[in-house]
């Protein structure tokens, strides 16, 4: 086990039986689709003269798409997400009925806005009326006009949510002067919708009538209507109430204008003398949006004419946004927004109407990647009317600027700069993927969901958003609160994010937040409060070089910026003298191990949020490193093994230097290569320096043996090192002789290391163990021609041929290929693990080779060749196929394992684990027990062999650390010299497993968690119990009986169960057989 690659080790972590009962009884549950066969066209078909149509299609494919595969894939996807024609007809009929219903709603008498007694008790006004008192009078008049707007007409709605937007124009007589002020317009609109809702809710036509906030913006309630019966899920009609055009003077809503009076908002009777009112750009924008709905529709439908690619392009873009969770919530990058962006690019001639959907996607992503709308806004306004506000005015008021054709509305008003940067980051990343021919861009861009947990290195939650009220107070955000209609989450969020961004400046390349979302609600319920958005999630993407630095160096003490630095960091800031003699302000974070250093960002975040935003630590749930608890060892050591591995590697380096310089060796050492996982920093529990306690062992002739009376001694891993010897004519060319010479080398090495470096050594036939600095290194001599000699076969004609044999393959894996494995894990361990699980679960192992292009050692051509060869020879290749630059065609690490059943089970477990983990990590309010996914379910197995914990040498490594530990005969020590050689590589459980597998391999599968598992789980193989015709070679562990007068043999299960106990005498505590699970 010591030298197998990481993937295989992961696979062995816990007992993993093949999936499902169906499998064990011999039936495959999965659809057995045939493996792809190379396509065959007859010669005549291949070379027939092309029609002009076919030529253009082939040409188009070449020019407009990367490949025909991508073209076909996109076509399939579009079929999947676009609305079917038959459904459109049903929707149209539904819309007609709504239209006729709306005009029949009766008028109401005029009342004060605050007098809402005329409304039925069954409807609650969908608006947070705070403060309640407001001037103005309202009465209901049936809508002046109804018009379908938005994506439905343009044909760009995308499943799964088909929305049809209807603009309901409120007649002019409802409104009075000054309705633009103090939410009067908003209240009237809400009342208008309430009255409609009240009437429609009585109609049988609808399956549900509900309220929602448009994009979770509480200033804009809408009414949702769904058809009755099975069509309920098909479509959602959204009613937007909007004012008659020309009702308001646009200049009242310029970003610098105020429309909410402080005195009203603060409920003071008289305004303060002389105080200027602050601008309310978001409030203004929320009214303006309503006034331009119809003109936006016209604008977009003009764009869409003669532009077939737009529809496809928008569908792709919407899928892209959906997969990245960017298209829902307050300040989202909505489908409407992206349509406007495509229109902008068309106007700017970055897109032409000739383009295909794929090219629209590419150009739009290109634009997003290259343009920072939070710095240089864009505008769709054609004529430069000097009276209109300028882009600068918009930048003053909003973080992200994209002005609509009227020149008045900022389409990105609610978006935070951080959210835009995330969009930009994703666009950049996607462009890189599209340009990289090695990656299947289609899968990555459009088919793979990208939740925050798998996107960001660290994720943390703000458990109680109501704490943001305190933040608003602390940061003095009264004006923003007024502007946002009291929504403290929306008001505080941009400031909190920019605070974090400043605090993490060098460490993080991206600080992102989840979009606050409020679900729809029934019309008889009170509208949701601001705190109902649930926990807010923040994601951090680090710059690996700086993320874990312990020092935050500030300006020199006498500089004016020093004060600013001090106020920003508070009492954490202190004066320090640096090596160059300067005295600077600095913050030093406490962290001794790598594991703690990785969590410095957590310290920073907790400190800054407490200091500047008044958010207590208890409200923050940081899920950056929760999983690491599984690999932490010991009580005193808080690390996750990195330090231990560094010290192992130091000792190894020293040993390899000594080997290089060893005198009196007949041949020189040409290379020393460490192959143990600890030497490439990937061991789960790296060894720690140890010294044996003599009294614990049996002693004879200066040798220590485990004692039967005592618990099993602690497991000491031999760290395997391959020591390549110089090639020379002196080497024999015969495999038996080479083995002997190698044994002689092992003896000699032991002797020389003892003489020249006073190291305690113990030679054996296949290796020499060296005790050094408390570690055991296992030296293994290798001769580069040995595998070749093992392969030699002489054909009858006398020709020498090389043929892989089991022995040669094993030797090559150990001496040649294993040393190539290097660590390539970066970022945070947790996100790495989640992505690994996701890869396991979602990769199409059956139809694709997993190409790991380490250090980009493979060229395009090589990759294509790997894929082609893979398709051609699929049935002969391992079920899990990995290709690397050093191993392009044989997938040598997965040749033996996993089997098809195990892979299937692995995929299933990975999927479930991922789901469970993501659920837990995203739910800060519930109890989190991430170790859950590491505990295997045992009810699935046929037999459980319970082991005696005292005889499990690695019991301390188990997922749930044992409460009481036993002495295992070693103490920590790295300096011991001249000692008796400790007991090395003695693990009874592994020996037991080996014996079990040797004896019962054709009857059962054995599963064990090598990190301290207390149970060996046994699963009978699906065909084990089928009576076999009597044959001398199939008699292993079976008994003979007659069936229909034929001699057959069946497994002797009772005896085998007793064998489990006999073979594991002293180790096995009990054998628990679930006899009810099988029949013979």
């Amino acid at each position: 086990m010591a030298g197998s690659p990481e993937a295989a080790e992961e696979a062995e972590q816990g007992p993993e039986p093949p999936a499902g009962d169906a499998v064990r009884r011999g039936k495959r549950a999965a659809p057995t689709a045939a493996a792809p066969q190379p396509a065959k066209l007859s010669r005549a078909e291949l070379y027939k003269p092309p029609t002009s149509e076919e030529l253009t299609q082939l040409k188009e494919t070449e020019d407009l798409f990367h490949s025909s595969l991508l073209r076909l894939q996109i076509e399939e996807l579009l079929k999947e997400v676009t609305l079917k024609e038959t459904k459109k007809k049903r929707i149209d009929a539904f819309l007609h009925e709504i239209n006729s219903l709306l005009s029949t709603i009766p008028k109401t008498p005029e009342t004060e806005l605050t007098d809402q007694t005329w409304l039925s008790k069954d409807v609650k006004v969908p608006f947070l009326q705070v403060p309640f008192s407001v001037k103005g009078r309202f009465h209901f008049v049936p809508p002046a006009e109804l018009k379908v707007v938005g994506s439905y007409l343009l044909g760009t709605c995308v499943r799964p949510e088909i929305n049809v937007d209807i603009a309901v124009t409120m007649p002019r007589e409802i409104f009075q002067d000054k309705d633009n002020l103090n939410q009067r317009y908003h209240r009237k609109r809400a009342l208008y919708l309430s009255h409609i809702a009240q009437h429609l809710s009585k109609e049988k036509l609808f399956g549900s009538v509900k309220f929602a906030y448009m994009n979770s913006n509480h200033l804009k309630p809408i009414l949702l209507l769904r058809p009755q019966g099975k069509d309920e899920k098909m479509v959602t009609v959204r009613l937007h109430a909007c004012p008659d055009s020309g009702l308001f003077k646009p200049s009242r809503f310029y970003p610098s204008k105020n429309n909410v009076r402080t005195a009203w908002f603060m409920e003071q009777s008289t305004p303060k003398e002389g105080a200027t009112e602050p601008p309310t750009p978001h409030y203004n924008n929320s009214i303006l949006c309503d006034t331009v709905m119809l003109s936006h529709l016209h604008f977009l439908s003009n764009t869409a004419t003669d532009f077939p690619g737009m529809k496809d392009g928008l569908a792709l873009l919407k899928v892209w946004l959906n997969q990245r969770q960017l298209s829902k919530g307050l300040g989202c990058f909505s489908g409407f927004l992206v349509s406007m962006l495509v229109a902008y690019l068309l106007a700017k001639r970055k897109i032409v109407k000739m383009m295909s959907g794929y090219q629209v996607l590419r150009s739009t992503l290109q634009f997003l990647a290259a343009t920072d709308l939070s710095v240089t806004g864009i505008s769709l306004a054609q004529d430069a009317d000097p009276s209109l506000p300028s882009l600068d005015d918009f930048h003053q008021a909003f973080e992200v600027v994209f002005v609509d054709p009227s020149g008045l509305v900022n389409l990105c008003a609610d978006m935070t700069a951080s959210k835009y940067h995330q969009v930009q980051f994703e666009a950049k990343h996607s462009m890189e993927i599209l340009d990289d021919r090695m990656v299947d861009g289609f899968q990555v861009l459009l088919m793979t969901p990208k939740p925050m947990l798998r996107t960001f290195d660290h994720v943390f939650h703000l458990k109680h958003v109501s704490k943001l009220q305190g933040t608003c107070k602390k940061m003095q955000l009264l004006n923003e609160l007024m502007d946002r209609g009291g929504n403290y989450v929306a008001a505080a969020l941009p400031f909190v994010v920019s605070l974090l961004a400043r605090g993490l400046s060098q460490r993080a390349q991206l600080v992102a937040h989840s979009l606050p979302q409020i679900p729809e609600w029934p019309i008889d319920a009170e509208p949701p409060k601001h705190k109902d958005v649930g926990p807010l999630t923040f994601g951090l993407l680090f710059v690996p070089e700086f993320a874990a630095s312990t020092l935050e160096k500030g300006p020199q003490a006498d500089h004016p910026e020093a004060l600013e630095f001090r106020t920003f960091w508070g009492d954490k800031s202190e004066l320090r003298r640096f090596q160059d003699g300067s005295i600077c302000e600095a913050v030093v974070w406490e962290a001794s191990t790598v594991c703690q250093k990785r969590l410095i960002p957590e310290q920073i975040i907790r400190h800054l949020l407490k200091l500047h935003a008044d958010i207590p630590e208890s409200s923050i749930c940081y899920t950056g490193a929760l999983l690491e608890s599984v690999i932490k060892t010991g009580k005193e050591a808080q690390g996750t093994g990195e330090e231990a591995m560094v010290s192992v590697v130091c000792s190894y380096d020293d040993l390899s230097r000594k080997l290089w310089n060893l005198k009196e060796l007949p041949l020189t050492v040409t290379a020393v290569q460490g192959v143990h996982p600890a030497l490439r920093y990937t061991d789960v529990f790296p060894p720690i320096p140890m010294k044996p306690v003599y009294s614990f062992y049996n002693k004879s002739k200066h040798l220590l043996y485990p004692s039967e009376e005592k618990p099993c001694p602690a497991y000491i891993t031999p760290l395997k090192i391959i020591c390549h010897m110089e090639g020379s004519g002196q080497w024999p060319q015969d495999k038996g002789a080479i083995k002997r010479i190698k044994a002689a080398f092992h003896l000699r090495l032991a002797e020389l290391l003892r003489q020249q470096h006073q190291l305690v050594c113990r030679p054996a036939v296949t290796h020499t163990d060296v005790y050094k600095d408390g570690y055991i290194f296992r030296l293994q001599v290798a001769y580069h021609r040995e595998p070749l000699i093992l392969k030699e076969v002489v054909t009858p004609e006398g020709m020498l041929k090389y043929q892989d044999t089991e022995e040669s393959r094993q030797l090559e894996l150990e001496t040649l290929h294993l040393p190539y494995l290097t660590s390539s894990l970066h970022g945070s361990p947790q996100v790495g693990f989640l992505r690994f699980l996701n890869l396991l679960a979602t990769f199409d192992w059956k139809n694709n080779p997993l190409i790991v292009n380490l250090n980009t050692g493979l060229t395009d051509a090589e990759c294509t060749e790997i894929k082609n060869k893979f398709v051609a020879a699929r049935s002969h290749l391992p079920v899990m196929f990995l290709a690397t630059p050093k191993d392009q065609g044989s997938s040598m690490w997965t040749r033996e394992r996993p089997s098809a059943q195990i892979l299937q089970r692995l995929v299933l477990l990975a999927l479930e684990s991922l789901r469970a983990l993501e659920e837990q990590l995203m739910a800060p309010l519930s109890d989190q027990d991430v170790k859950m996914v590491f505990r295997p379910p045992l009810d699935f197995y046929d037999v459980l062999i319970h082991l005696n914990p005292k005889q499990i040498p690695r019991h301390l490594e188990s997922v749930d650390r044992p409460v009481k530990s036993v002495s295992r005969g070693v103490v920590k020590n790295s300096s011991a010299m001249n000692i008796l050689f400790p007991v090395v590589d003695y693990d009874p459980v592994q020996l037991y497993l080996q014996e079990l597998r040797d004896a019962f391999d054709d009857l059962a599968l054995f599963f064990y968690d090598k990190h301290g598992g207390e149970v060996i789980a046994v699963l009978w193989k699906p065909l084990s119990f089928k009576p076999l015709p009597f044959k001398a070679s199939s008699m292993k562990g079976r008994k003979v009986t007659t069936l229909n007068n034929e001699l057959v043999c069946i497994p002797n299960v009772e005896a085998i169960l007793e064998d489990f106990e006999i073979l594991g005498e002293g180790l096995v505590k009990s054998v628990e057989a679930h006899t009810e699970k099988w029949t013979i």
Partner: protein
Amino acid sequence: SAGNGAGVAAASQNGASLAALAVKFAERQRSPHCLLVKEHQVREGADTAHPPRRTLFVLNVPPYCGPDALSRLFSRCGHVQSVDMCDKPGPGEKKDKLTSKFFDHKTPKGFQVAYVVFRKAAAVQAAKALSKEGPLLISTKSHPVKTGISKWIASYEASIVNPKELKAEVDAYMQDYDKKTAEEEAKAAKEEGVPDEEGWVKVTRKGRKPGLPRTEAANLRVLEKEKQKRARKELLNFYAWQHRETKREHIAQLRKKFEEDKQRIALMRAQRKFRPY
């Protein structure tokens, strides 16, 4: 037990002179394994290691039952000369006399077959008659068989080699080997350039005029070189028909690719690979 009896009956019914012996590890086990024994028969009489009639062929020997235990089990039937165990039935090889203490060890794994060679043929029949008796015990008070922890500790002890012994063995082997290779080389040197009875001279890599090595790789290299030489001589895009051919070839390639892709898509569609969420 009843099941066992049925087994014996069935075995004899079939005409094969198989007998089933119940065997248990020790007294306290409840369910026995059954050893199937019969007289060893060889068709061609090639198996010299296991003389027919005197040899008992044993199937399904449990993993904890080694040669010693087996020989003790059958010693009540007659003097056991040797016990040979292997993974699957097959002709026994003449054992090398020079068995090494350190090299080429094959530890028996799992269930084995065994050839028990008795001194007298009568013992074979006696052994088969054991099926009528109660279960045999592998591990007894007087001769306990080690399993589990005590076995592993013992084999750990055994795995520690004595360097001096190892060195002595290696030296002896290598001396032998060197002698053998020296003899072979001397023989080759003597035959160098000397024609055999039919007049053929053997060309080796060692002579004055070394020939090509007789390996697969060398053969392939020669073929490759030939191919390259031919390719160099060929003129491309020289005639008009060659141009036409290239274009046709291009379209054919595109078509082939398209066809392949269509097939892949069909497969993916069948697996519902196009549902984004």
